[in-house]
């Protein structure tokens, strides 16, 4: 548009008649009045661009789902789905009649319930302690409990393997010396422990505002009626925060159900499978042939399960409007006094931070500096070196993985931020089609990462695009996964914009395009850059999709980590890679949170 710079004197091609200037002095840049309301050529180009972007988004969202459904109805066993003629329910009958299903379903159930339960207990306690009591050291403890947020799940799992493996993990050794029994991290309780700790930050962030904003007057009213601390907490605080707690739990159920890295890495040695790790194992078996049909059938079941959970979650959050008492002013409540429990409770929380977060990460850093796996001790201090880090930059397969990861994350973050902005704008001003696109993108929330990876894999084995085996197939799958989330982050910001800001621009004589560029874009820019960073951080550590779509040339750092842990057992080099990943991810997560955490779904 010509009037894009302040120096411009305006003026489109003279397509319309000039308005009579009346008694006013000669105008210096009058835009000709349009004589009709038909779209101009530029508008038609814009419409074309919009149609193309809309079609790309619809394609990204719908095709993988369709492919998944298609392949689950093919009795393909070892062949690829589209190589088999005819449709059948054989895959479903096969998995429903196998004993495996019961075992995997039971494992998954225990894993999900255990993870959510553990995360719930820890995060509710922490939210209560940090927001409503006078626990000492809050400024140091609260951010520390949030630290796992910056750790990719794969790195977390590797760190725990190093810290708590029965042979030489420091936590396992200490527990054996003090309590006299061995703990096994390669077990269902081990997975639950790690995934539970991993789930705490997300849940804490959802719960802390609920506890912080709960008006102290409710509790004071109960106290003046003669209710003690326990009665007050049980009858007033918990019921009022219950909607928030339930909603957060539902969301964590969905996340735990699709969690791949932790159950896969910790379950692999003893062949303990949950749904997500079983799907990956049937597609990429350590030995033997892949069973595509069965994997798709399991995938469909997993999608249905998380759809149900998301529906329950949405219902729950809709209901919670009744409890608007929790909202209101940013109340700084005078805290509940812990009294003589202050120091013991502080010690427990401090121990939690130490054991759950600091020790595993320290072990990881320690291992990354050692030439071979050895316990932490002063004697070994001399053997430490940066050799593993130098290897990352000298070993071509390692440095290639680092470059792949960076390129994939940068491109994915940029594509996703762009599409997400477009989709969020389309949802609010794109009419029915825009809203429809926005709504169908929600379906992708229900596709667990491992299933999405499988669907994209099938799709590009079938379609004649030469992207299988390149980083582009991973970028496409990541973008598909993150656009729905990103568009909701941006939409939240758009909805908070006063409509008047936009309207007054139009009334001041600026065209839609100028208002979009000069008013809307600058105002949502912080949300877009937050989205970019969020996607960047998550792309760095995304394992299941990258793993399923990996081949020799497009391996990312996490895929390499997976291989090193599983096959070559090269822990020191793997740790160095993990530390590098952790540092990158931590910086971007820290950056996002500096702008304040947004909630959305």
């Amino acid at each position, binding site marked *: 548009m010509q009037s894009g710079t302040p120096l411009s004197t305006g003026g489109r091609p003279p397509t319309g008649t000039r308005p009579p200037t009346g008694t006013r002095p000669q105008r*210096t840049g009058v835009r000709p009045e349009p004589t009709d309301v038909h779209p101009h050529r530029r508008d038609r180009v814009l419409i074309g661009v919009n149609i193309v972007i809309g079609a790309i988004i619809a394609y990204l969202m719908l095709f993988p789902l369709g492919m998944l459904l298609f392949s689950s109805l093919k009795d393909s066993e070892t062949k690829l789905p589209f190589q088999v003629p005819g449709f059948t329910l054989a895959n479903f009958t096969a998995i429903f009649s196998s004993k495996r299903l019961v075992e995997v379903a039971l494992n998954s159930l225990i894993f999900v319930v255990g993870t959510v339960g553990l995360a719930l207990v820890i995060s509710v306690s922490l939210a209560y302690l940090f927001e409503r009591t006078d626990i000492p050291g809050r400024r140091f403890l609260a951010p520390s409990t949030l630290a796992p947020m910056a750790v990719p799940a794969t790195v977390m799992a590797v760190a725990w393997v190093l810290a708590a493996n029965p042979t030489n993990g420091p936590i396992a050794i200490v527990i054996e010396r003090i309590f006299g029994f061995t703990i096994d991290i390669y077990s269902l309780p081990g997975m639950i422990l790690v995934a539970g700790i991993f789930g705490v930050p997300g849940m804490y962030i959802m719960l802390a505002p609920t506890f912080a904003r709960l008006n102290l007057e409710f509790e004071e009213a109960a106290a003046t009626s003669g209710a003690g601390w326990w009665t007050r907490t049980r009858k007033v605080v918990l019921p009022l925060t219950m909607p928030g707690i339930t909603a957060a739990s539902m969301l964590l159920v969905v996340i735990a159900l699709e969690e791949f890295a932790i159950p896969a890495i910790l379950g692999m040695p003893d062949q303990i499978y949950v749904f997500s790790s079983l799907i990956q194992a049937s597609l990429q078996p350590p030995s033997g042939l892949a069973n595509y049909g069965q994997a798709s059938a399991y995938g469909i079941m997993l999608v249905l399960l998380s759809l149900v959970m998301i529906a329950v979650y949405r219902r729950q959050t809709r209901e919670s409007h009744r409890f608007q008492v929790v909202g209101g002013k940013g109340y700084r409540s005078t805290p509940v006094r812990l009294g003589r429990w202050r120091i013991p409770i502080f010690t427990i929380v401090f121990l939690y931070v130490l054991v759950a977060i600091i020790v595993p990460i320290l072990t990881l850093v320690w291992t990354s500096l050692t030439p071979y796996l050895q316990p932490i001790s002063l004697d070994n201090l001399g053997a430490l070196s940066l050799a593993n880090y130098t290897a990352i930059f000298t070993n071509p397969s390692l440095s290639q993985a680092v470059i792949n990861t960076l390129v994939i994350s940068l491109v994915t973050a940029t594509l996703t931020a762009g599409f997400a902005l477009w989709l969020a704008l389309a949802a609010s001003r794109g009419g029915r089609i825009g809203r429809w696109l926005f709504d169908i993108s929600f379906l992708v929330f229900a596709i667990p990462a491992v299933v999405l990876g499988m669907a994209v894999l099938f799709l590009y084995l079938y379609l004649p695009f030469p992207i299988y085996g390149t980083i582009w197939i991973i970028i496409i799958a990541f973008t598909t996964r993150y656009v729905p989330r990103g568009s909701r982050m941006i939409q939240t910001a758009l909805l908070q914009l006063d409509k008047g800001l936009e309207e007054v621009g139009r009334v001041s004589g600026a065209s839609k395009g100028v208002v979009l560029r000069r008013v809307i874009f600058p105002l949502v820019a912080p949300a877009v850059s937050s989205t970019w960073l969020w996607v960047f951080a998550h792309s760095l550590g995304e394992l299941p999709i990258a793993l399923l779509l990996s081949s020799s040339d497009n391996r990312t750092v996490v895929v390499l980590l997976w291989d090193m842990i599983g096959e070559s057992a090269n822990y020191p080099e793997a740790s160095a890679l993990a530390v590098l990943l952790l540092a990158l991810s931590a910086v971007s997560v820290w950056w996002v949170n500096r702008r304040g955490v947004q909630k959305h779904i």
Partner: protein
Amino acid sequence: MQKLVATDHSVQISGLQKQFTRHDSGEVNRVIDDVSFAVPKNSFFTLLGPSGCGKTTTLRCLAGLETADGGEIWMNGKAVFSAAAGRDVPPDSRPIAMVPQSYGIWPHMKVFDNAAFPLRYGRKTYPRPETQRRVLAMLEQVGLSEYADRWSTQLSGGQQQRLALARALLCEPEVLLLDEPLSNLDAKLRSQLRAELRSFQQKFGVTTIYVTHDQGEALAMSDTIVVMNRGRIEQIGSPSEIYDSPATRFVADFVGSANLIPGVLDRPAGPRDRVVDAKTTLGVVRCERFTTPPAPPTAGQEMSVCIRPENIRVVTASREPEGPNRFPARIMTAEYLGDRQEMVVAVGDVTLRAHADAHFDARPGDDVTVVLDPAWTVALWS
């Protein structure tokens, strides 16, 4: 309605219609129902009414931010909207400027850039030095020149309002649209800015359409007031016409406070009659003030009598000689306000609010006589 030559009007609206259909019930809600008026050039024109009366929607239709379902809008002798011709000029091509209720000050721009927006991206763009000169001159006018380099979020509510006005005036509009611009300010600032706004309007001579629900603002600032209710126009007139000669019960009640007494017409009134008598529960009330009835009134026709509290005199019982509109009454309550007493008096079953002399010596329970000044007693036909 005023009958002026068309060219003297900045804005003309005829037969404007806008309706919303509720999705769940299919119920049709007429937000604007056949609204027509003409705004003379350079006048201050106010749309007054309670919330939900359609005044803001009318303003947004004028701005082009909403599309009406029927009718026509003309600005400066050109149709900017016509449902019949399928014509709807977008907001950026209408000769308007607007100050929205929340001011619409862009938080990502400095004060100067906010004001300069219309000159950089608007209907008429200027070279940089000219923009600079005009913006600074305008900021000087509204008393914000020393804030030009500040971020707009650092301004107070009153300053934001002035900035919004400055930006609107820099659009050089034929028609300035103001959507309750004073409603977000505290009472003291509001009365100060009310006077400022009116003096700016007179200085720049720009036709102004002002939307408000505050009758005080409307009476104080306007040349012409349109009172709206449920999407329809109740009355159009000057502030004194609206206050002294309300046309309907709604206008009488909404603007100022009024005693409304239901009744029927005593005898038919001819077109030349300056006085009508109404039979009410008080007795026969003489009304010397009324608007031209829509149809010649007939005896027994239902009507209302309106009398404002300040036009009721309260006197000691049986002191004055006989005259029209004198009724015996009893004082129910009396509040001393310094300059007057506000009383509620009962005439039979009817209670009336009246302003009595501050030092009129009477207590609740005393018998008095009330006099409804016939010159200020209004007959309402609907």
